[in-house]
């Protein structure tokens, strides 16, 4: 046994566990109804794989091996706890290869889909939905989730426990809603995935969360084909994420879009996203955002960006999903498409009523438009004010750099 083989086996175990975690947990929850047991058994199957695969070799069906170990573990625990015989019988009936649901039967619902809809149930607090999705579906350790939410691990453990207790006590069903209820509930699921993605994408976030969000929306797209907003969200994530290597410099500072090296964008991801986008709807909120992102992704340079098209998509988005942030981005887009004066006018509209007070990006946008209008002194002062309102260090430094450029 060489060290190399051991490492390959460990890598294979980690990859197989990552791919089959949601399936194992989702199936064990359906059969046992015990969320914590399901998570523990999935974890145990990975631990055993890490111990045994380096010595015994990677099994032919890694996912099936993990499922069998997790199922056996659940059986042991339940037997010791002497719970109902029915659950044990159901566990025994799970074939070792019962990792994917049998094909061909329309009513068979993938357990992972049930798990996604249950974790994202609107009767749970939004933060709890995101945390539960990360913990239960993605298998992210509680400590990592706690760090991203800026709370202690014990606080996060309590939050997760409270969510699981509510699912049991209020009897939140373990099922995928059907009929009109599905159309009502799907946006809530996509909202959780979107938060998950931004938790990974934002400054100070956990980059791994963005990958998890993409994996989940990909899974959702595969399990619920023909839902245009799912495809749109997948396209949007792929497009945003395609810039991950270009949007930070070597010091970790944020590189604004106009200074990014477009050769470092992930062009394979962009090509995939454009293909996915052709399946997306035309007017859903994610479709509109994805089309905006696609305009950026396909522009040869910042200057050659199709700003009038982006401004039009933002007009549609502002009508469809009016929000202060959309209004701000719309003002910026119009500023590039139709001149800084047009942008400043829309920005003033967006800020009316104090909707964007204390929001540094609004000040930064005003600074940028003011600079392009030919008032560097006022623009520099605005960039410094935006920096003073910004808590994330890389963004703060980027704003101060802009101020310094204008003053110099």
């Amino acid at each position, binding site marked *: 046994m060489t060290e190399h083989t051991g490492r390959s086996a460990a890598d294979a175990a980690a990859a197989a566990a990552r791919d089959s975690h949601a399936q194992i947990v989702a199936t064990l929850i359906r059969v046992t109804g015990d969320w914590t047991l399901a998570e523990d058994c999935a974890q145990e199957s990975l631990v055993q794989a890490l111990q045994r695969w380096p010595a015994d070799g990677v099994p032919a069906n890694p996912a099936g091996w993990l499922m069998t170990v997790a199922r056996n573990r659940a059986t042991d625990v339940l037997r010791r706890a002497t719970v109902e015989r029915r659950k044990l019988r159901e566990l025994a009936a799970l074939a070792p290869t019962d990792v994917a649901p049998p094909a061909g039967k329309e009513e068979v619902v993938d357990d992972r889909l049930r798990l996604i809809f249950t974790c994202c149930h609107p009767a749970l607090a939004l933060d709890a939905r995101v945390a539960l999705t990360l913990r239960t579906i993605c298998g992210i350790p509680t400590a990592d989730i706690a760090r991203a939410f800026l709370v202690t691990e014990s606080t996060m453990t309590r939050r997760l426990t409270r969510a699981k207790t509510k699912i049991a006590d*209020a009897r939140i069903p373990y*099922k995928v809603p059907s009929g009109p*209820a599905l159309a009502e509930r799907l946006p809530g699921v996509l909202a959780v995935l979107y938060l998950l993605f931004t938790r990974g994408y934002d400054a100070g976030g956990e980059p791994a969360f963005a990958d998890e969000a993409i994996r989940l929306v990909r899974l959702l797209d595969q399990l619920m084909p023909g839902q245009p907003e799912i495809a749109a969200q997948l396209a949007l994530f792929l497009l945003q994420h395609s810039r991950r290597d270009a949007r930070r410099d070597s010091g970790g500072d944020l590189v604004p879009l106009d200074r990014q090296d477009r050769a470092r964008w992930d062009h394979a991801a962009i090509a995939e996203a454009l293909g996915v986008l052709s399946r997306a709807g035309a007017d859903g909120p994610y479709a509109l955002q994805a089309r905006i992102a696609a305009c950026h992704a396909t522009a040869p340079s910042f200057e050659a960006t199709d700003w009038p098209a982006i401004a039009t998509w933002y007009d549609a988005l502002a009508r469809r999903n009016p929000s202060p942030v959309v209004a701000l981005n719309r003002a910026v887009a119009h500023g590039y498409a139709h001149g800084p004066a047009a942008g400043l006018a829309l920005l003033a509209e967006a800020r009316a009523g104090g909707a964007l007070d204390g929001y540094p990006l609004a000040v930064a946008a005003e600074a940028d438009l003011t600079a392009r209008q030919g008032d560097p002194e006022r623009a520099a002062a605005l960039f410094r004010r935006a920096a003073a309102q910004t808590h994330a260090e890389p963004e703060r430094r980027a704003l101060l750099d802009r101020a310094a450029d204008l003053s110099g």
Partner: protein
Amino acid sequence: MKYMMFVCTDTEPDTDKSAEPDIEVWVAENDASGRRLDGHQLASVSAATTVRVRDGELLVSDGPFAETKEVIVGYDLLECADLDEAIEVARTHPMARGGRIELRPFAVFD
């Protein structure tokens, strides 16, 4: 699964102008389906009385008159398969629009 459905007023009722569902129809439908076991409108909070015992002493007082304008004005006891079914029952109650509905599951003892 039993859910106690508290029917409450809300400071921000629905502004939708379309007609609210009829309470008589709601009661008849849910009685017929077996999802509504019991329920009643409550008299005004001005008729409420609070009872406490502290150190063996009976304390009876008028009220409570909470600061909030959101008060329980009625209840319905539901029997539903799960929370989604209870939500579907609650959404069609006229007070889901005129006020708000709180769903509280009965505690389950193993």
